[in-house]
Each structure stands twice: as C-alpha cells, then as structure tokens.
C-alpha cells in the first residue's frame, strides 16, 4: 500500500463518517459542523487530485462562506431540532432506494472510465492556477460573466425575500 492510498482511505473514511453524522444528527448545528469537516476532507481530496486552486476555493467558499451562512440562519431561527424527526420505521424505503441509487451510480460511473487510471504524484501541469486562469478567461469568458449576473440576481433575490412584511407594505 502506497502512502497516497493510505491517505485516501483514511480521508474517505472521514468523509463518509461525517456525511453519515450530518444525516443522523438531530441537531442542525451538529449537522452543519459535520458538514464543515466533510468539506475540508473533500478539499484535501482536491489537493491529492492536483487541483490546489479548487481546494482552496472549496475551503473559502464552502467551509467558510456557505456554512457560516447556514450557522447564521440556524442561530437566527433557533429551531435546531424538530420533535419526532428520524423515525426508524420511516427509514426503510429511503434506505433501500439509497442503496439502489448507490449501486447504479457507482456501476455507471466506473463503467464510463473504461480503463482504470492510477493517480500518483501530484505537481503536474494541472496544478498550476495560472494555466487554469488562461483557459477560464479565454474559453469560458462568457459563462464567467453570466456567473457574475447570476450572483447579482441571487443577492437581489435574497434581499427581496428577507425584507419584512411591514416594509414591503409601506413601499
């Protein structure tokens, strides 16, 4: 077993365990914190796959911004646990469907690669953010600008939705 494989297996264990923890924790705060750990372990996977820029934006955007937003809303609402959630008798059907989805997904996605490629050393040309930027700002310039519009629309939408009723009536 090589070092990368050991690292992969430990991280995969952490990722699956934290995903399960998020799924099964009754408190939404614990679920959010489990998800942060899951995002960090996925970021380390990105480093192993030679994508350092994606890894760091994963930590900044997902583990940072998005999860802080989640925690803010949990604190604002103050409704961490719902009574009577996670009834074990109701879990049977979703669990069966989940297992079927997993089997089909894993089969199809592995079948698609055909030959198995081994990922060894990091530090190939793929890990250079300046080369990625060249592709992003040349081939994908239009989607990049559309993303900017999308973020603006989302910001306006969030402000409109969270405006209080009274203010909306007065306006």
């Amino acid at each position, binding site marked *: 077993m*090589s070092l*990368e494989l050991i690292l*992969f297996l430990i991280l*995969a264990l952490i*990722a*699956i365990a934290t*995903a*399960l923890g*998020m*799924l099964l924790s009754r408190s939404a705060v614990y*679920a*959010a914190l489990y*998800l942060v750990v899951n*995002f960090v372990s*996925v970021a380390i*996977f*990105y480093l*192993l*796959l030679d*994508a350092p820029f*994606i890894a760091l*934006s994963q930590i900044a*955007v*997902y583990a940072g*911004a*998005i999860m802080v*937003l*989640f925690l803010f*809303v949990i604190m604002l*609402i103050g*409704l961490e646990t*719902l009574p009577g*959630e*996670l009834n074990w008798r109701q*879990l049977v059907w*979703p*669990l069966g*469907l989940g*297992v079927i*989805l997993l089997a089909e*997904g894993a089969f199809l*996605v*592995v079948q698609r*690669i055909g030959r198995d490629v*081994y*990922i*060894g050393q990091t530090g*190939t*040309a*793929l890990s250079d953010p300046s080369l*990625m930027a060249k*592709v*992003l700002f040349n081939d994908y310039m239009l*989607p990049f600008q559309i*993303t900017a519009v999308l973020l603006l629309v*989302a910001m306006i*939408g*969030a*402000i409109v*939705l969270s405006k209080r009723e009274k203010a909306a009536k007065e306006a």
Partner: protein
Amino acid sequence: MVPVSYYLILSAILFSLGALGVLIRRNALVVFMSIELMLNAANLAFVAFTRVHETFSGQIFVFFVMAVAAAEVAVGLALVVAIYRSRQNIDLDQMNSLKG
C-alpha cells in the same frame, strides 16, 4: 497510487448519502445541507475526471458549480427565513399549501 475508480465510488457514496438525507430528513436546513453534499460529490467526480483527461475543463466547471451553489444557498436560506416568519416552523412535512 490510487485508482481513479476509488474516487468515483467515493463520489457516488457521498451523492447517495446526500440523496438519502433529502429523503429522510424533515428539517429544511438539513435538507439544504444534503443538497450541498450532493453538489460536492459531483464536484469530486468532476475533479477526478479532470485528472484522467488532463484538461482544465473539469476544474472550471467545479468553479462554476461553486458559484451556483453560493447563489442557491443565499436564495434558499432567505426562503427558509421567510417561511419561518410566516409559519414559525421549518418542518417540510407541514408545508403543504401554497398560501402564504
């Protein structure tokens, strides 16, 4: 040396756990987190395929997915807060009418 299929199987496992979360949880916030988990699993598959095909397209798509996820979370959480204001509850089983 890690075979790329291991990454893809892990991605499928994380995606299935996310889908399971959407099915079994009633707390709207946890359902949102499960959707984030599914997006992350798809991103992991994208980056793994990027490594196989040695082009940057996968990484760039992950970048766009992150932007869309950020927008989705902002609007989704605003919706959750608005729903909580009108009904004092975020239980998805109780949201059965379109009237506000």
